[in-house]
């Protein structure tokens, strides 16, 4: 009988996950991270513009024009002159325009139609229509729909299920089924869950432990998973993720823009989320 035949092959594929060692960091090493970021790289002045209310130094009209020209007839956005189409660029386009207060410069309706056409049967989104659901793409599409006030078009229970399935026994979140956890996915999945009002669908304490375990006690900074090399990318998402989880030592971070809430409050750009 087929069932008996199958039973003899009942063997689990080893679950892809990490083990957190007992001596892994378990508290937030704020000072270390501040030192790490401050000493990293030489061109940090560039990214301080918005944080320090210096948007007037950029040519807003040129930026708006550049983005307008990247929108295609089907509403999608290319990333650059080479024409790659990806929902990441839809998100970048509306996020940039929203921060500049120029969202009406593009065809929002068409842009929304394109992003919605990338929705899959599992409730997730890919980079183009028909593409596989992926946590990074989901963050971009959910953020896009938040900015364009279309979150009600998402199948919240279905997407929430796909997202909360990203949590592994270690507490970390992966980006797709059967992949390893990664601190950056912890942000993208977490922010998406927050935007659709389903943050309570994962174990927040276990995720917090995972993120803290990704810190490097000597150099400061966060790595993708415990024990790996740190970098600013994962440091940003580790800290932002902890903020969403309610870490009091960190300012409130907006899940759509991955920027401090007080900055967005100042420029009056705070999209409404699903409660």
């Amino acid at each position, binding site marked *: 009988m087929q*069932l008996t035949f*199958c*039973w003899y*092959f*009942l*063997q*689990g*594929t080893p*679950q*892809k996950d990490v083990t957190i060692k007992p001596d892994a960091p378990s508290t937030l090493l704020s000072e270390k991270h501040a030192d790490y970021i401050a000493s990293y790289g030489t061109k940090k002045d560039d990214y301080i513009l918005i944080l320090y209310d210096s948007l007037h130094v950029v040519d807003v009209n040129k930026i708006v024009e550049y983005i307008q020209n990247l929108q295609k007839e089907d509403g999608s956005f290319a990333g650059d002159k*080479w*024409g*790659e*189409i*990806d929902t990441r660029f839809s998100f970048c386009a509306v996020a940039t325009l929203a921060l500049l207060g120029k969202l009406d410069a593009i065809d929002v309706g068409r842009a929304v139609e394109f992003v919605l056409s990338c929705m*899959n*049967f*599992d409730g997730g989104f890919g*980079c*183009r229509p*028909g*593409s*596989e*659901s*992926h946590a990074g793409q989901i963050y971009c599409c959910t953020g896009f729909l938040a900015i364009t006030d279309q*979150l*009600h078009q998402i*199948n919240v*229970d*279905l997407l*929430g*299920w*796909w997202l*909360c*399935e990203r*949590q592994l*026994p270690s*507490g970390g979140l992966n980006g*797709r*089924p*059967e*992949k390893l956890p990664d601190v950056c996915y912890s942000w993208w999945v977490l922010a998406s869950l927050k935007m659709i009002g*389903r943050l*309570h*669908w*994962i*174990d927040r304490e*276990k995720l917090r432990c995972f993120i803290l375990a990704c810190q490097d006690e000597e150099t400061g900074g966060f790595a993708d998973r415990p024990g790996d090399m740190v970098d600013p990318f994962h440091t940003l998402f580790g800290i932002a993720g902890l903020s969403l989880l309610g870490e009091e030592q960190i300012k409130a971070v907006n899940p759509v823009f991955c920027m401090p809430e007080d900055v967005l409050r100042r420029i009056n750009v705070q999209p*409404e989320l699903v*409660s």
Partner: protein
Amino acid sequence: MYWERLLGVQGSVVYSGSWWKKIWGVLDGIRSGFWSDKAYWFVLGVAGTGLRDSGGDTSPHWSLLVAPPVHAWEHRRTLAAEEDPEAELAFAGTLLSRDFSNFSAWHHRSRLLAPTRTPASPGGGAGALPPHRLQMELELVQNAVFTDPNDQSAWVYLRCILSRASPPPRILCLYVNREDATLAVTFSRPVVVGAGSSALTATVDGSALEGAWRSGEGRPRPSHTWLCDLPPDLAPPPARPRLHFRVTWEPNPAHREVTLLPDENEAWWQEPIKAGELFWPEVGVAEASVLEAQVETCRQLLELEPRSRGCLLTLVLLLSALDPLGHEDEIRRCLRDLQEADPLRIGFVGDVASRAEAAVGVLRMGAGPDGAVRLRLPRKALTSLPLLEHMVLVTHLDLAGNDLGGLPPALGGLRRLQVLDVSHNKVTTLRGFPPLPRLEELHLDGNPISHASALAPLATCPRLARLRLAETPLAATPEAATHLAQLLPGIDIALA
């Protein structure tokens, strides 16, 4: 991506060019000879990224060497469009037979099968897979889940192949009340009816209803329920004419109608509830035999692996799609087992169980002789309150002894609600509580409400007459009675 650029710059001549085919042939040979497919695409990806990063002006030919494996699958699908889909299905099947954890390979199959889905309805998005295709996929999934019941890829895929695209919003209920002079339209999903929008239109006795639509949830946000005030000269008292309403929601051609007779104060039209679609609205399989076969498979697997959470959740979906009332005991057992098997997702399972209880409650609703419709959901461990769009005719709602932390704005669709019992829950505030035109009695005793200001939204309920607040921190404060009398004058408030 790069493929479009390649084709755009050089035209299809390049792809069909013989030297390109030779290159592909060599690469294919390397793949089948030495490397696994995954490694093959990964190396292409790394090489492609490296070449691209080395300078934006590199020849478009090199753009064929693509970025990470996810994008490699995109290119594979573009190629497959010109090849034999059956061969592609076989390719994906081969990958899966080596490693069922290959989510990309499952997705590849679903994309190849997408064109075979029949449309669910005009403009309704992709429908179900044809039966013979579905059968093949179900067998493949069965092999996967019996090999590794804890691998989630196959369970996600199973849900996808048994689903159709989320149905677009449609009208579920029309409700008109002569005294309130309002027509209420409730949708299956939240919609936006903006000022000046012509998507939602209504006529009364053939003449257009000119009034503006407003959300039944109290704020101009996407809502399930939208209201239109009837013009005062339509039926000035004591006149009680017969009124015939016709409502159209533009994306859907079907219009809905309701007639208010002279001796009636209220009238409604409601779409008959499809029991099998309450819990799992996206279910796309109509044949019970297919679902029943899957139920058997899940039951057998659970005998071997009682803690397979993918299996438990799938069984709940299947039983709910077949007969939620007939299977309610087994559904509850599975959800209890799922809570134990999946401690990481207690919040998720709690909300899933709430949905199952709400579905059973909706199906058990009874209408009394006086027009009362009672929905009883006490002590069901509810952590959320879904399916409110199916509860719009309820007059008495019993939610006592649950775990609700608040009440959703979608409650605003319950235009007939007279008595609401939310006693002994976990409500701390009524922020977002919608204006309910007929609410007379509200039980909030035994909730952690500590400030009178938390009850401010109740001032928008014109008929609220009785409020119970015994066993709340607020009731124990010395000035409670005074504050409440100021906030909610004329209401009989019980603090003990």
